[in-house]
């Protein structure tokens, strides 16, 4: 087998050792474009490499996810490209696969076990938000009131992102968080919560949002309150409309993850596993890049301009 991401190999999409197999793509949800891109890319790449690939949607429910594993193990898949619903809740499923001799390649969301997955290609949410936090301080300044919109409570991206952000921002006493509310990664909720937050604290200068959907919702509320010049909005993900919004100066910044990159990488690992390779690094971090007004032109939705 050859090393991952080697350009000419991936361009010429012949399966390593021309063995082909059935590859399952298990994704936490498909009603969020970010994950759709992740799943579609993984599938496409796997097929490009000559394998069969099917997408399983866990609908954000660990139970459904567990069922998917039962099913795909029963119906003889050779590898799983896996975006977990839950870092802890998903471990059991991955272990089960390992015992059945089916390799699991985790994408984006880490699972809390080093001995379960064949490899994990991770988007470092924490680090990404550290960067965002630093930029936040640069642009907003070292003093002022701000609000935070959390994602789905109980989702560990929610905590990672919040923690990363606060690891930086909390060092400045001048920056006071006057409201912290969950909007469950949802546009509508984000807007309604923001509307109310603005009532209670009309003087905030920034909102940090756990993902771009919420950022867009928050911006909507801010705009209709006519405060778009007073309040800076920060998102996370690098979704299409967020990139556009940054271009239009609506959002201050977002953190670009690289779902396509990660998905491709995972697909290629799986391909190589089927080809016989076994020595994968347990973790391959894929860094998250800060997207701001300055560098937005280098990016498109879910990735950098090629």
């Amino acid at each position, binding site marked *: 087998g050859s090393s991952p991401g080697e350009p000419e190999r991936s361009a010429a999409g012949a399966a390593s050792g021309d063995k082909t197999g059935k590859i399952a793509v298990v994704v936490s949800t498909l*009603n969020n474009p970010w994950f759709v891109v992740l799943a579609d890319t993984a599938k496409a790449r796997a097929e490009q490499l000559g394998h069969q690939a099917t997408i399983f949607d866990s609908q954000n429910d660990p139970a459904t996810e567990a069922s998917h594993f039962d099913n795909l193990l029963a119906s003889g898949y050779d590898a799983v490209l896996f975006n977990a619903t839950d870092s802890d809740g998903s471990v059991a499923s991955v272990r089960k696969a390992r015992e059945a001799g089916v390799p699991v390649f985790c994408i984006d969301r880490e699972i809390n076990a080093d001995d379960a997955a064949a490899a994990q290609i991770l988007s470092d949410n924490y680090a990404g938000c550290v960067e965002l936090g630093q930029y936040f301080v640069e642009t907003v300044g070292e003093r002022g009131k701000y609000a935070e919109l959390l994602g789905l409570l109980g989702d560990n991206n929610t905590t990672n992102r919040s923690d990363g952000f606060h690891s930086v921002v909390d060092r400045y006493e001048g920056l006071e968080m*006057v*409201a912290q*509310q969950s909007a469950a990664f949802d*546009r509508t909720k984000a807007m309604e919560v923001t509307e109310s*937050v603005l009532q209670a604290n009309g003087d905030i200068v920034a909102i940090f949002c756990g993902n771009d959907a919420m950022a867009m919702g928050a911006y909507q509320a801010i705009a209709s309150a006519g405060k778009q010049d007073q309040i800076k909005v920060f998102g996370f993900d690098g979704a299409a409309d967020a990139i556009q919004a940054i271009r239009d100066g609506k959002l201050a910044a977002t953190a670009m993850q690289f779902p396509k990159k990660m998905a491709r990488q995972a697909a290629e690992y799986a391909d190589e596993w089927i080809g016989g390779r076994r020595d994968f690094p347990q973790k391959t971090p894929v860094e998250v890049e800060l997207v701001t007004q300055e560098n937005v032109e280098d990016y498109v939705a879910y990735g950098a301009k090629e």
Partner: protein
Amino acid sequence: MTALRGLGVHAAQLQSLTALAVLVVVLSVSTESFMSVENGVNVLRQISVNLCLSIGMTLVILTGGIDLSVGSVLALAGAVAAGLVKEAIPLPALGYALEFTAAGAIVAGVAVGLACGAFNGAMVTLFGLPPFVATLGMLSIARGLTLLWTGARPITGLGEVFETIGSGVWLGLPVMAWVVGGLAVLFAVVTRRTRFGRHLYAVGGSERAAALSGVRVGFVKLWAYTLSGALAGVAGVLLAARLDSGTPQAGIAFELDSIAAVVIGGASLAGGRGTIFGAVIGCLIIGVLNNGLVLLGVSSVWQQVIKGVVILAAVAIDRAANRERC
């Protein structure tokens, strides 16, 4: 009071009205920002969507049915409207593309909702499906269709017309509030003063008696569901306008809030009892609660607990105050 009567207000609603009053008073004293005009406008804008759904839900619940599909139908209608206003539909056959004006797109969105509702109605009346199942099926179908239509991507940037609807203000009140308020008054009158309205109550009270009295039960039910669908369509357009985007995740679990509002307003899921006015109160109670808890800066976790408790309390007081209705 007599004005209220006109809208069909009974002890029941007056009860929920007290619950609402208490809530408002408590919040006004505990947080200054609550009682501002601005915040009032906010609450109005926030409840418009739920109220729009609750109006239709009331019609269905009056017949003794239930409509679980409103959330998904809302999403589908919103997505369709957003999609059509953004890009034209190519018709290779005719060799040209079908352009939609904002108005056209909105009508199309509502029409889609109406169609879904009619389908629900047909399932219930023609095939005798239990409303719960019929509309549960639609919940799943409409959500799927929404994802198909949008490719799970939000459709954003819908232009002025939508913007005006979404964030516009007229005579100090949000345009949305005017729209939904108008619908509320309209249907309050329909339920109180028209034959169709009274037949809704009759069918809910005793389907057999209604049928034997020559009421066209099937017809009445069919229309109840159809209207509920259409109103969900309107709600979908309104939400899309508010968010300036049709998002596939819109409206998830909205059916629960809407049914809750109707029941808090004094309706009975057994059918035959309930009013539009009650639904309005119900929506206000829920809306004010959501808004107030955020203003108070209650943590999201506790919000869930408190919200549950308050709803229980509100309805418990209500019921205690007029036992006869249980």
